[in-house]
């Protein structure tokens, strides 16, 4: 996995996708990323979306919840490890308590009883751990099949993949069955969101990239990221006040409408 990333980075350098003028500083490899994005998009359109749509039609929501819980439980093991690595011991203990309860009373994880017991699920991975340790994200990077990432998160994904308990599953057929099922479940859960993205974005690539970068930043700081010092933000902030004053007239009428 990591090797794949290195190869990609080299291929990128060779293809000359170094930064040029007018490009987003966070995304110096945009032409390369866009071509991978287009490939992924086609793959999604012709394979993943039809499969996930079919899965959602055929499999009742109740069962899909069980499938999500099952994989979520497996994921909790390393979510705990990552919390420990980030020094969040309380969260880590909570994650492992989840695994203990859900694997036993929750019947191999198909029931998420730990949530009802007050052990909330967390969202951690090695990319976030590296970020927490102070590693910058590096340029934005779209990975084949896996999608939005950055250099740091790509390396993190490599470690996630390497430590994924599913990879230890034997025999081989069972492992791939699980991998495909997990992918299908994940894609099915995303069907509504991807349709909304389709509707909301003027340029899907840019919209998705910016959302990914914002989202990762928020996750690294567990939802409390420090304010960014972006000159654009300051400008926009100043803009807000006059705008707020300006609209008063128009909005007032609406407020008088009876409920």
């Amino acid at each position, binding site marked *: 996995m990591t090797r794949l990333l290195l190869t990609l980075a080299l291929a990128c350098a060779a293809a000359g996708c170094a930064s040029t003028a007018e490009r*987003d500083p966070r995304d110096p490899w945009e032409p390369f990323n866009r071509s991978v994005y287009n490939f992924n998009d086609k793959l999604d359109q012709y394979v993943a979306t039809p499969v996930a749509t079919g899965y959602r039609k055929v499999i009742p929501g109740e069962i899909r919840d069980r499938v999500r819980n099952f994989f979520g439980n497996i994921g909790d093991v390393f979510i705990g490890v990552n919390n420990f690595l980030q020094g969040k011991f309380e969260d880590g203990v909570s994650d492992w308590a989840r695994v203990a309860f859900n694997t036993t009373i929750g019947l191999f994880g198909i029931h998420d009883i730990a949530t009802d017991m007050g052990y909330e699920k967390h969202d951690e991975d090695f990319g976030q751990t590296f970020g927490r340790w102070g590693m910058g994200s590096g340029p934005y990077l779209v990975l084949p099949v896996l999608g939005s990432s950055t250099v740091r998160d790509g390396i993190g994904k490599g470690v996630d993949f390497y430590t994924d308990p599913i990879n230890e599953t034997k025999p081989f057929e069972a492992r791939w069955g699980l991998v495909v099922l997990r992918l299908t479940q994940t894609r099915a859960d995303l069907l509504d969101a991807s349709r909304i993205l389709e509707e909301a974005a*003027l340029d899907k690539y*840019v919209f998705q990239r910016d959302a990914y970068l914002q989202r990762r930043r928020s996750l690294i700081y567990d939802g409390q990221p420090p304010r960014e010092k972006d000159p654009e933000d300051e400008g926009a902030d100043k803009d807000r006040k006059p705008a707020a004053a300006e609209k008063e007239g128009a909005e007032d009428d609406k407020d008088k409408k009876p409920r």
Partner: protein
Amino acid sequence: MTKTRSLASALVLSVLALAAPARAQDPSAPDQLVKTVTLEVVELITKDKEIQAGNRAKLIQLIDAKVLPHFNFPAMTALALGQSWNKATPEQKKRLTEEFRTLLVRTYASALAAYSEQKLDFRPLRAKPTDTDVTVQVRVMQPGAQPVPIDYSMEKTAGGWKVYDVMVGGVSLVANYRTEFNNVVRESGIDGLIKNLASKNRALQSSGLEKK
């Protein structure tokens, strides 16, 4: 992948807050406003058979009546445009705000249509009574997944508390449009952006009619 999923479900639910002046509540409590409106809208959509059957026009009507009065669209549009907003004429500002509002309402309708009775956790407001700019937090609980936080940035105006940004899973809607908008403005100016938004809205409208 899991992150994207929670983000997704969040997007789906970002919608669920905001509407109807909360007359019975303390007007200085924006969190009460969010709660009242969210619960009201959720109840209306889950009870309405036509909306459940996919009547998009009716859903948009509901959003117009209940949710929109609590959004400050000129402020949202200004924030999304950043510095380009200052270069726009009053007429351009008006058109931009209208088109952006149409786009957001349509997106909201899609998100609301995907709501399937997830539990909502309304967080207590952490703000001083004198604050005029607060963040109201709601969390969408889902089995087997991390709760998705929805943060409403709200500002106190003469017309009551108004939302000027929504953050879903840490992603600010307004900030997310900024790069897109500025790319278009750089290439084809503010009028280009207005045209771009208008044609996007028209395309969505016609595709929506075909489906429903």
